[in-house]
């Protein structure tokens, strides 16, 4: 333990710039960064360049910060308090060009990429809400891609406008967090009934109600899964890291466009604001998301005349045709009232309703045929315990599994990207293990789905707190719990 007068030394270091004590003290983070840069043998040019450009218009502030940074570095170099310094070897990473990216930025880029790859203009309807607003800010800067951003009067109008744009043939997207999802529920149900593409980006935060707007939680899974009136199945895609938000956004759009359905992209505050190195993808390798609008009648009426049936489905995907206004001969009316199979006319027939309920469910279930199997990480190959997670807990669960392995035990990690529907091999994977542990930042939502669907006696491990790096004692306790599971005790 080393103690040092951080504020005092910082104020001393920057006194020549004539700042007040309070302002001068604000540079102490740079003193600390300078000291750490010395301690870990990090290059200093990048930081200094950053400070000079960040405060280009305020040279006094720039100079003070640079001085504090250098003072911190020099303090490490000259004081004899520290006997060692460290050099951290670069993490083992695949070859390529990298950049830093946060989850919300990656998600926004993923949506822009999906727009380019589909050839559809992106329309974002959104109402500001923490921690999702940055996606609105980001997308509003990218009009050169044909992106329209609409800051609506409320959450309901945000998704309503997005759905209206989808009806018109745009890629409709809305961004929000838990309380906003609640407000959007009715419109999501309408999108289920209209069978139009729509992506709902839900950046989860602590709940219920206003809850903890700036803290993360995974407690909106059930809301995404079931939070609507009637049988209203919606596919759910969950990114597992900040950079993964890019791929997850493309995947959510793929499902929405292919199956003509609203899709939840379920991120959270930790992913949204966290960042990590991202290997910049090759544009040529991005998926082709092009769609075909209906242009011709698809049915013949009783008199033998061609007509258009908006609910005549693709036999493989069960998706209905997407005929956009402006297409002559395909004029049709759709709405939230139950529709007759095929013709799409209003139908109150109970047998038809039963068929439509089952068909909408079958369509979403069928998404499973287009998603990869769940892959399990089990380096020893003899694990009896599977830790199954979803979303932003990927990193912490992986770290915990590595510790368990380091302690001489075997353990398998599986992480779900698709929560509705599940990958087709999930049932078989779960049965391979004697124990299944499901850690979540909620009181057990994925586990409820898993237990109900597969009749697996999974164990929950539930925390409603941020991914704090736990103290050593707490970490040992958690590991012990897991190892107890491994040992079958």
């Amino acid at each position, binding site marked *: 333990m080393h103690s040092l007068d951080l504020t005092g030394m910082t104020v001393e270091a920057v006194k020549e710039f004539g700042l007040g004590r309070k302002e001068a003290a604000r540079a102490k983070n740079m003193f600390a960064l300078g000291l750490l840069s010395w301690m870990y043998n990090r290059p200093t040019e990048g930081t200094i360049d950053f400070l000079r450009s960040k405060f280009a218009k305020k040279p006094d502030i720039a100079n003070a910060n640079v001085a504090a940074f250098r003072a911190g570095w020099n303090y490490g170099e000259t004081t004899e308090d520290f006997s060692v310094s460290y050099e951290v070897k*670069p993490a083992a*990473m695949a*070859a*390529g*060009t*990298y*950049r830093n990216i946060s989850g919300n930025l990656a998600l926004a*880029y993923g949506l*822009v*990429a999906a*727009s*380019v790859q589909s050839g559809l*203009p992106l*329309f974002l309807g959104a109402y500001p809400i923490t921690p999702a607003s940055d996606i609105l800010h980001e997308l509003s800067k*990218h*009009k*050169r*891609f*044909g992106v*329209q951003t*609409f800051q*609506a*009067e*409320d959450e*309901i*109008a945000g998704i*309503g*406008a*997005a759905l*209206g*744009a*989808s*009806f*018109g*043939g*745009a890629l*409709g997207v809305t961004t929000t967090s838990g309380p906003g999802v609640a407000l959007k529920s*009715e*419109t999501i*149900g*309408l999108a289920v009934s*209209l069978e139009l593409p729509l992506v709902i980006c839900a950046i989860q935060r602590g709940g219920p109600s206003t809850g903890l707007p700036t803290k993360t939680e995974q407690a909106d899974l059930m809301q995404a899964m079931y939070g609507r009136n009637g049988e209203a199945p919606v596919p759910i895609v969950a990114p597992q890291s900040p950079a993964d938000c890019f791929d997850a956004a493309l995947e959510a759009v793929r499902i929405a466009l292919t199956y003509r359905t609203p899709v939840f992209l379920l991120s959270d505050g930790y992913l949204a604001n966290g960042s990590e190195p991202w*290997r*910049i*993808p090759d*544009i040529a390798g991005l998926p082709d998301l092009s769609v075909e609008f209906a242009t011709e009648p698809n049915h013949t009426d009783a008199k033998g005349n061609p007509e258009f049936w908006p609910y005549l489905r693709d036999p493989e995907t069960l998706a209905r045709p997407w005929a956009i*206004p*402006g*297409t*002559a*001969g*395909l*004029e*049709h*009316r*759709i*709405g*939230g009232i139950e529709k007759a199979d095929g013709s799409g*006319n*209003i139908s109150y027939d109970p047998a038809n309703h039963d068929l439509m309920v089952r068909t909408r469910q079958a369509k979403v279930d069928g998404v499973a045929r287009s998603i990869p199997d769940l892959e399990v990480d089990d380096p020893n190959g003899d694990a009896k315990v599977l830790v199954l997670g979803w979303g932003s807990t990927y990193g912490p669960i992986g770290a915990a599994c590595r510790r368990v392995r380091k302690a001489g035990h075997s353990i398998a990690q599986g992480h779900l990207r698709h929560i509705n529907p599940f990958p087709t091999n999930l049932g078989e994977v779960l049965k391979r293990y004697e124990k299944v542990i499901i850690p979540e930042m909620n009181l057990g939502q994925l586990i409820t789905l898993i237990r109900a669907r597969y009749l697996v006696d999974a164990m929950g491990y539930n925390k409603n707190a941020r991914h704090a790096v736990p103290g050593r004692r707490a970490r040992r306790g958690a590991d012990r719990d897991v190892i107890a599971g491994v040992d079958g005790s």
Partner: protein
Amino acid sequence: MTDVVELGFPSLGSIPKTDIPQRAADFKTDQEVRWCPGCGDYAVLAAVQGFLPELGLARENIVFVSGIGCSSRFPYYMNTYGMHSIHGRAPAIATGLASAREDLSVWVVTGDGDALSIGGNHLIHALRRNVNLKILLFNNRIYGLTKGQYSPTSEVGKITKSTPMGSLDNPFNPVSLALGAETTFVARTIDSDRKHLTSVLRAAAEHRGTALVEIYQNCNIFNDGAFDLIKDRTNGADWTVRMEHGEPLVFGTDSSRGVIRDPENGMLTVADVNEVGKDKIVVHDAHAEDSAYAYALSRLSTKDLPYTPIGVFRSVEHPTYDDQLRGQVAAAEAKLAGDHTSELGSLLRGQDTWTVD
């Protein structure tokens, strides 16, 4: 048609036209119309189907979006594109559609409950944004679909199923509300006056921006006779102020009544023309930039409707939200050196990268 000013804005330029002559029947669908016999909605449907052929727009480029309520069944009966959405949300949905598609003529069909109760927020924001939407607000001053509760336009003291001792809350005047939201086109008409209804619809269609048309519509089941005062064949004219741009606001069976500016307080009021003299009668100016004049006109009808102006209260030309939104996108796209794909490459790459071998 002379009832309503011909505004002549080149507003429909972005919507494809058809050379094939259209008839009202072309706009009818094969769906059975399910309103109650005698409902005022039939007259509005017939008027809309009757006047659309005049516009000469390609039928596939017309969209009707509705919310929930009796009037919101309207899209099912229009052989255009249509969406019967959810309660109160049609203005929001239509805003997205109109923004995304410059080439569409987008109509919203809504009622007093749909637009002013559950959808009040969406309505006022659509109005203030001035999106290219034509909003037909069927006002029957009652909830019809849910079988007879009072609505936000019902008069105070209304006895209904949900207010057996009389309703307590003050009603909205939809025209005043719209003018308060700075709506660029506001008009009122009546279901039973086909000629007037048609002329107002035409003026609304020609307006670039949001047009709000309040249509007094009789619900003969739950609120029959709500507008009998002004519909009365003998005395109705005594209560109905027919507004025409550039014409003095004179009305009444023998043109004996007129709208004047009250010398006491500057407000608009009704006076006997012979008493005050013709030169005191206000000449209607639908293009007045300040909405205060149109607002004052709207206040002639109180909650009990003694004097009811019909026609165009206000029609001014302002930039529309959706035109400007598309304008921003077009300006940004015009600066693009390459195509979207190459631009995507530089976006993803960003400014600060490093390479791992």
